[in-house]
């Protein structure tokens, strides 16, 4: 039996396998990204980068109760001006590096995207899940007008592909997805807002109290989001949320995803998760007789 072809491409970005390192996980340090790319990830998205250097929240930044995983890292980042060297180091891997950015408005996003393009990223990923001051308690990604402006603005300003990463913490995901429809791809989903209280210290565990739930608990939310968008729009989608195995990735691909990202599973399986999921995907395709990913992409939508 010949081995299946698991390559895929998102626009002009060719990936040797569908597994991309998600933003915020082991992607602050260029040497780390380079190692993960050499160990099997087909691309890496950087930690989300903003205008200014930020330390992020004080620890605890994670509240873990297997399989529950909640984080509130607080967007620590060196500031856009200090990240060029890390991206350069990561790019020595020869694989695509995607620059994730966050800002408080359209103008910041445009400036950040321009810098990322200078640093040689293959695409820019807009993290639209940072807190939005108006309508407190919610995120930029919950406001369709703001999303439309940011996406249009960045698309007009750079020539590299623009991916929009959307939040599931919204009343109507399709409204937001439509607002972001100028993007070259949508990345679904970011974390789900959650909290953990420790009953012996009687306090929220995270220093920021509220955090983002990720990992296997949110896979159903991610699958639903990808399916909902792909049922209604014709735009490439990158699935993310709770992928721990090649079989989880198949579920996303059957819901219509072109590629997937992996974050929290690194906690369970270490960097080796990338070779694990690749083997599992090959195993599935071999046993089910699939030669290429396209043969089952979106098949559950029919």
């Amino acid at each position, binding site marked *: 039996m010949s081995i299946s072809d698991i390559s895929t491409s998102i626009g002009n970005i060719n990936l040797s396998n569908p597994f991309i390192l998600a933003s915020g996980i082991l992607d602050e340090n260029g040497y780390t990204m380079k190692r993960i790319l050499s160990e099997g990830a087909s691309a890496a998205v950087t930690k989300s980068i903003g205008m200014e250097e930020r330390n992020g929240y004080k620890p605890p930044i994670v509240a*873990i109760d297997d399989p529950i995983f909640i984080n509130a890292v607080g967007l620590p980042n060196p500031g856009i001006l200090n990240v060029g060297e890390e991206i350069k180091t990561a790019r020595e891997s020869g694989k695509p590096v995607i620059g994730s950015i966050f800002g408080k408005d359209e103008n910041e996003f445009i400036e950040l995207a321009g810098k990322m393009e200078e640093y040689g990223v293959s695409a820019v990923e807009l993290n639209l899940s940072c807190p939005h001051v108006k309508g407190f308690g919610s995120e930029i990604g919950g406001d369709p007008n703001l999303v439309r402006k940011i996406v249009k603005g960045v698309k007009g300003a750079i020539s590299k592909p623009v991916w929009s990463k959307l939040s599931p913490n919204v009343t109507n995901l399709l409204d937001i997805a439509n607002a972001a429809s100028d993007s070259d791809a949508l990345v679904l989903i970011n974390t789900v807002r959650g909290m953990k209280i420790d009953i012996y210290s009687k306090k929220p565990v995270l220093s920021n109290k509220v955090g983002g739930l990720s990992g296997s608990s949110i896979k159903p939310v991610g699958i639903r989001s990808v399916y909902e968008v792909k049922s209604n729009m014709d735009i490439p989608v990158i699935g993310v949320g709770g992928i721990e195995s090649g079989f989880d990735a198949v579920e996303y691909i059957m819901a219509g995803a072109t590629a997937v990202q992996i974050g929290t599973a690194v906690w369970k399986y270490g960097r080796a998760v990338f070779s694990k999921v690749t083997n599992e995907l090959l195993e599935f395709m071999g046993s089910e007789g699939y030669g290429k990913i396209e043969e089952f992409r979106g098949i559950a939508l029919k």
Partner: protein
Amino acid sequence: MINSVRILRNEINTPTVNSLYFHWDVRVEPGQFVMTWVPGLSEIPMSLSLTGKEKCLTVKKYGDTSNALSNVKPGERIFFRGPYGKPFSKVRGKTLLVGGGSGMASLRPLIDQDASGVVAARSSDELLFKGLFPIDKIIVATDDGSEGIKGNIVDALREIELEKYEMIYVCGPERMIKSVVDFVAGRNINMELSLERNMKCGVGICDSCSIDGFQLCTDGPTFGLSTVLTMKEFGRTKLAESGKRIWFQ
């Protein structure tokens, strides 16, 4: 899961170091650590300085969090998750334990009849756990010469035939470890080093403790000498809390 256990006793080791004793019925190996949460303050990595049925954290007071932790009274609770990290390898034969600063904390569970020690500190009263070694198996060094060799840890190592040990275990701040590594580079000795870097998550996902793409919290904190020798970032550069790259002077 966060463990919350009550402290049995709080022992003063040096003017800046206390040890908290407690029962915790989980298997832990020397070299492993826990992320210790002081509610309202922060969460910091702490090695287990005893790994038998009775466990111990040995805390040096650096900042707010370690100060608060070192003040926990018998009967009060401490909160932590773990154990995390790759332990030191076990060997049969003579061993040498080399600790600087609070580094002796993680080496303490390795003290047995085959172990000799090299303990360094600024001055005599800060020498940690030197009393746990028989007098003929310990070499001490102090910066101010108030006890033992006047000088740093490398000055002490010069006095010793390192090749005769089955394993040399080293723990301390990166700068100290760097000087040890530079001193032994090229020689034929078995050495494992427990490194220290900023840690936020403790579970290998936040990248704050990384060194050359390895995560100290999961691939380490213990590394073999040969691995450390390949590390381009070791002793030269690391990321600050924000992720900004900084260089060791």
